[in-house]
């Protein structure tokens, strides 16, 4: 874009101005992202009475009570643990079940395969909200309310379509010779799947796992309905209830919001590549 051979000073000036204006735009947008987050972080260190009079500046007095009381209360940790357990279990069920199905869709030819696969693909179009009411009644009938399985299994079921599609795409690219060689060496279908295909698919598995974890971690609608008792509340449900409970204590709520954001953002910085890879792959194949 910028001429590389002997740029005249006018051209250089223009390109520098261009670079500067591009940076200016990016900084403005970046500020829009950062300011709310920073506001929450700093406000958590203020008392609510100071917050309304001094919304911008640093706290005149750094109050750590908002954070430390939450961290010491146990409720917060309980919710982190609940969210973690549910997210990991959802991930395990989704990926295990999808991988088996994707293996069949990718490597076996049988009558009705495309019909069944299309059925799964149609599942992509079912918004969660459409099924939530009958799902709730179903779970109530089977006594799965206030039971983590009542959240884990539906989340896994709704995660299936995307996971199956992404994994099938990956499994298809594994050369058939490899499977033949394994079978000749006495490997069963499951042996090939377990000992050869899955280890080879590790990047794809990481991607769909991260996707399943993030989706589960952020889910609100289903845990809100399934968990009537606080024992199993996940972080989003906890945050919402906390907001209702301490409606006037803005600083305390913001502290809770910051603590609730921290695990997700930490996970994001670690698993950013898998997450983005999964989303772009899902979007281009979905």
């Amino acid at each position, binding site marked *: *874009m910028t001429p590389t051979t002997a740029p005249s000073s006018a051209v250089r000036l223009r390109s520098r101005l261009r670079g500067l204006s591009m940076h200016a735009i990016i900084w403005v947008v970046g500020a829009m992202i950062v300011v709310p987050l920073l506001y929450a972080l700093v406000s958590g260190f203020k008392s609510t009475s100071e917050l309304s009079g001094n*919304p911008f500046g640093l706290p005149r007095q750094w109050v750590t009570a908002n954070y430390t009381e939450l961290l010491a209360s146990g409720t917060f940790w309980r919710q982190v643990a609940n969210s973690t357990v549910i997210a990991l279990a959802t991930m395990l069920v989704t990926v295990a079940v999808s991988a088996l199905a994707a293996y069949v869709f990718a490597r076996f030819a049988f009558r009705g395969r495309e019909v069944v696969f299309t059925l799964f693909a149609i599942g992509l179009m079912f918004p969660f*909200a459409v099924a939530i009411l009958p799902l709730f009644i179903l779970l109530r009938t089977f006594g799965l309310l206030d039971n983590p399985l009542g959240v884990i299994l539906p989340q896994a079921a709704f995660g299936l379509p995307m996971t199956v599609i992404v994994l099938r795409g990956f499994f298809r690219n594994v050369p058939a010779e490899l499977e033949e060689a394994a079978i000749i060496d006495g490997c069963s279908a499951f042996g090939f799947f377990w000992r050869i295909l899955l280890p080879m698919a590790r990047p794809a598995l990481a991607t769909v796992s991260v996707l399943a974890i993030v989706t589960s971690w952020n889910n609100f609608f289903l845990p809100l309905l399934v968990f009537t008792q606080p024992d199993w509340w996940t972080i989003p449900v906890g945050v919402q209830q906390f907001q209702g409970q301490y409606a006037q204590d803005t600083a305390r709520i913001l502290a809770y919001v910051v603590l609730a954001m921290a695990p997700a953002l930490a996970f994001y910085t670690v698993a950013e590549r898998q997450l983005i890879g999964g989303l772009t792959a899902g979007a281009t194949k979905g």
Partner: protein
Amino acid sequence: MAVSVRKSAPGRDAASAPARHRRAARSRRRLRERATIAAFLLPALVLFAALVLLPVVFALYTSLFRWGGFGWPDEFVGLDNFVRLFQDEVFLGDLWRGFVLIALSVCVQLPFALAMAVLLNQRLRGRAFYRLLFFAPYVLSEVITGVLFTMIFAPDSGLADHIMDAVGLGGLGIGWFASSSTVLPTVFLVMTWKYFGFHMILYLAGLQSIPKDVLEAASIDGAGAWQRFRYVTLPLLGPTIRISAFLSVIGAIQLFDLIWVTTAGGPVHSSETMAVTMFQFGFKRYQVGYASAISVVMFLISFVFALFYQRYVLRRDLEGAVTSMRGRR
């Protein structure tokens, strides 16, 4: 094999024995393959059928009844729920608001995301960091985002009003979430804050797959920066844009968490969405049949939209991919 030949019953035609055995072995293998397919597919099918398909079918069924949600529905009312639905001003409002949010997303949020993607596709210092930053809100849950912005847009005491005061616009007295005329744009603002990074990431992936030599060729042919974007980049980005628009629409149709946390549909239904109305009737007023009818309409809208999109919009992409591949050869 040799062992099994010797085991074959005496008196049969010896010449056909190996063939028969081969056939038997093949059918045994086919049987085993069938068993493998069934065993591998079963968990997914059961899970999917029980927790995705069954609920949707059940919603279709219960939408034909007046039903409080307990016991088996027995008061059949035919399509009454749907007739009532389309006379209900709140529900018609839901449709309108859904349409507004979709229109804003497609006409404002997506172009903005595209512009940021093009910007971050330039050689810029720190662009990996900016990409990471712009995408970060996507990993936060809608609930946390919603609670955060409820605090920021709190009337008078919130950060937004303080900023408006500081830049001298405090006199406008924008009500944000609290006024029925500004609540929808405010919701859209928060949606954009959370989701533009996601679309930007999709566009960036699309931009990076555009071969450099095509752009160079256009440049040599005398195309300016705008022409290169309009006539080369944009058409090649078509498939990505269409998919991101699709995801945006599906997301807007089922919008719930953000609304529920920030306004619960208020003030006076002015930010209510179909999912919120469904929730109100299904879980607060126990008119489950009526709420199911809303679910069904949501389902039909997304289903018809998806089919239409698949048929008329996305299919062009496949054709385009095939023809351009042939062209390249």
